[in-house]
């Protein structure tokens, strides 16, 4: 798996986490800047889903294809579900939901890289 995708996803997650924590501390509801970051991250994740499936088809590596694809799909689903789930809760707790979703993406991304490398 491309280290650039891994780096981009983790960097975006890190940035988003910082923005979200600032929101949490200041007790402000989610606003546009945050959703732009989430949107960009989601686009990268969707690109990764497509690119990952193509890469899986072309690789000679010995890796668990079903597991790899389920991780790709899971990562792409986490943010939309989290964002949707937080919409009904326009408060700190809602921001915390999005924060959990972003942390989930980061954790899954690290695991995904390990699966691709064949070490998991």
């Amino acid at each position, binding site marked *: 798996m491309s280290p650039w995708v891994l780096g981009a996803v983790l960097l975006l997650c890190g940035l988003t986490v910082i923005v979200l924590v600032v929101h949490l501390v200041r007790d402000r509801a989610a606003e546009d800047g945050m959703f732009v970051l989430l949107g960009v991250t989601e686009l990268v994740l969707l690109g990764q889903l497509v690119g990952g499936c193509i890469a899986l088809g072309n690789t000679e590596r010995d890796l*668990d294809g079903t597991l790899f694809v389920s991780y790709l799909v899971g990562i792409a689903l*986490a943010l939309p579900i*989290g964002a949707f*789930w937080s919409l009904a*809760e326009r408060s700190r*707790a809602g921001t915390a*939901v999005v924060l*959990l*979703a972003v942390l989930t993406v980061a*954790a899954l991304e690290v695991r995904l890289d390990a699966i691709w490398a064949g070490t998991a």
Partner: protein
Amino acid sequence: MNPIGTESSNALAVGWGRALVFAYGVFAVAATGRSLVQLSDDAGKAPLAYSLSLFAAIVYLVATTSLLLGGTTGWRVAAVAVSVELLGVLLVGALSYAATDLFPDKTVWSHFGQGYGFLPLVLPFAGLAWLRANRPMYG
């Protein structure tokens, strides 16, 4: 029975409960996925660890669902599920250190949830605190 979430005193999935339900949901999916992969790959390799993975998955699913449904019944079921979860993570966590030969492969709960950032250890305490703060009113 009231529709989901309309009874404000018994709704468990509002406010911080929403974040809690999300966390439980993530673990329900993670534990289910892990146990399915483990059981389909090689069920005979570590029967105890794999059964525990499956058991953990069921506990997380029950906890998520009951928190989501809320109400007095939801509260009771959630309290049982979260207590079982706490016992499970403490017991399996301790056993995975003490009797390593019992666990040739990992579960969500082994080493107190080390592979998951120790969140499986924190989650039941958060769950119990939330349930305690939102006890259904009687009488």
